[in-house]
């Protein structure tokens, strides 16, 4: 049984239940039950119409739960009017579900958890494992998220940017457990791009495809981080790159630039270079300038300084860096790199050690420690 196919049916089934009058929280629970049941039953007895099967089972679960709840409260009343199981509409409206699960009233971690469950069709246990928290904690996080959006109506679109941010967060979490969150984010973004025609959705999809394409080359056999400049480019996924570039070009042609398209453009220029020496750094700097116009953030300025260092030389990069706050994450690592390129190896070695001490992820810390060790070692020889 194809689990991804099964999960792909989740949002459609859920919206049908909601349209039939089930409240979102109860419908979502019922769909989870139906998914678990499908995993149990389908391998031996695959249904002809998988979606219809899920709708029927989920609706029955919903009614059972609703009945027992009602019975507890008011035993004399019985829920009437079960709809006929009739034909299931082919087109489903999962778009509103995306908006609901990324609703601005939710904290980022709750929006992420709710999106993975209600739109992604993952079980609470899978989400808990992916984020390395106990299942009970994740269950509570999802239950709270559902309570928070209980009063939100499911009938009008919200802000696409909030949805894209949640998908970006999931993608950036990468791969930490038995669920590949980057691949899951890619799947959900691809699906979103079929639900809504929006250049920034396409921009995020392109960004994900282009970064995902490099995944095999990002880590060495021993698990160490391989920086972009040192990656074996023959290991990049050319099909994903081609799709990413195509998606990006179509989006850019719409002439409604946004931050995800600009970031994807930077990634596309890296993907386009057969060797690191052939990277078009001048164009990359121009895209960072665009990005700064769209979202002036210190992180973008820091990345721009790296690109300036490559386009116009390390001194120019250091000059660009001088305007920035030295307490920014990765500032010291960038300064170390620019000093190394400038030939000041003593300063670079000292800064690499300092940057390793400040690193917020273990792979980055190890990478920077190796850089420092390499320079220290070279000086001793």
């Amino acid at each position, binding site marked *: 049984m194809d689990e991804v196919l099964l999960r792909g049916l989740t949002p459609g089934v859920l919206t049908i239940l909601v349209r039939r009058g089930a409240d979102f929280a109860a419908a979502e629970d019922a769909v989870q039950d139906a998914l678990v049941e499908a995993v149990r039953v389908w391998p031996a007895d695959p249904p002809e119409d998988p979606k219809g099967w899920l709708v029927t089972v989920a609706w029955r679960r919903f009614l059972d739960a609703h009945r027992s709840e009602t019975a507890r409260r008011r035993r004399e009343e019985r829920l009437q009017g079960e709809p006929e199981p009739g034909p299931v509409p082919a087109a489903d409206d999962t778009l509103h579900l995306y908006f609901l699960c990324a609703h601005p009233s939710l*904290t*980022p*971690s*709750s929006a*992420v*958890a709710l999106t993975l469950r209600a739109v992604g069709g993952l079980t609470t246990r899978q989400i808990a494992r992916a*984020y*390395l*928290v*106990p299942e*009970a*904690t*994740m269950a*509570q*996080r*999802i239950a*709270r998220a559902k309570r928070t959006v209980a009063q939100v109506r499911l009938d009008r679109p919200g802000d696409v940017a909030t949805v894209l941010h949640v998908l*970006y*967060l999931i*993608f*950036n*979490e*990468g*791969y*930490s457990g038995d669920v590949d969150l*980057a691949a899951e984010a890619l799947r959900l973004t691809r699906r979103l791009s079929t639900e809504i025609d929006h250049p920034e959705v396409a921009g995020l999809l392109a*960004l994900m495809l282009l*970064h*995902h394409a490099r*995944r095999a080359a990002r880590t060495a056999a021993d698990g160490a*981080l391989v920086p*972009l400049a040192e990656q074996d480019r023959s290991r990049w996924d050319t099909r994903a790159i081609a799709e990413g570039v195509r998606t990006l070009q179509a989006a850019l042609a719409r002439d409604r630039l946004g931050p995800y398209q600009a*970031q994807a453009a*930077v*990634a596309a220029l*890296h993907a386009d270079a057969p060797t690191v020496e052939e990277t078009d750094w001048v164009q990359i700097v121009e895209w960072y300038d665009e990005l700064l116009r769209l979202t002036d953030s210190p992180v973008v300025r820091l*990345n721009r300084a*790296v690109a300036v260092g490559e386009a116009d030389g390390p001194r120019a990069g250091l000059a660009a860096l001088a305007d920035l706050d030295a307490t920014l994450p990765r500032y010291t690592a960038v300064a170390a790199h620019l000093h190394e390129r400038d030939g000041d190896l003593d300063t670079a070695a000292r800064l690499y050690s300092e940057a390793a001490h400040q*690193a*917020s*992820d*273990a*792979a*980055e*810390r190890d990478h920077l420690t190796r850089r420092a060790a390499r320079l220290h070692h070279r000086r001793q020889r």
Partner: protein
Amino acid sequence: MAKYLLLKHYRGAPAPVNDVPMDQWTPEEISAHMRFMQDFADRLEGTGEFVDAQALAPEGTFVRFDGEGRPPVTDGPFAETKDLIAGWMVIDVDDHDRALELAAELSAAPGAGGRPLHEWLEVRPFLTAPPTVTE
């Protein structure tokens, strides 16, 4: 979405405001303290922020490799060790401010006289996995 370790020290942290050793509290005060800790953990599970909580025995053994085929060398416990960890709580929260807020709440656990301890807790971020988007 970041994990933090809230570290409680037996020794090594600055003295709490309500600085009376636990063995001099009344049994009721000890029970109230334990109940507070349990309620706090339960509440964090309810908010979807709880990961783990453990207490450690105060005395441990130092061990080191002593060469192939030789038994490990052990030493200690060292009564004079400056820093001693009593236990920890691991939380998974949206940001650093939230971690500080929760640590401060935990620091208000009741001690002697039922008054808050105001003990110093150390908040340490976990190193994360590398992000997927790198430039």
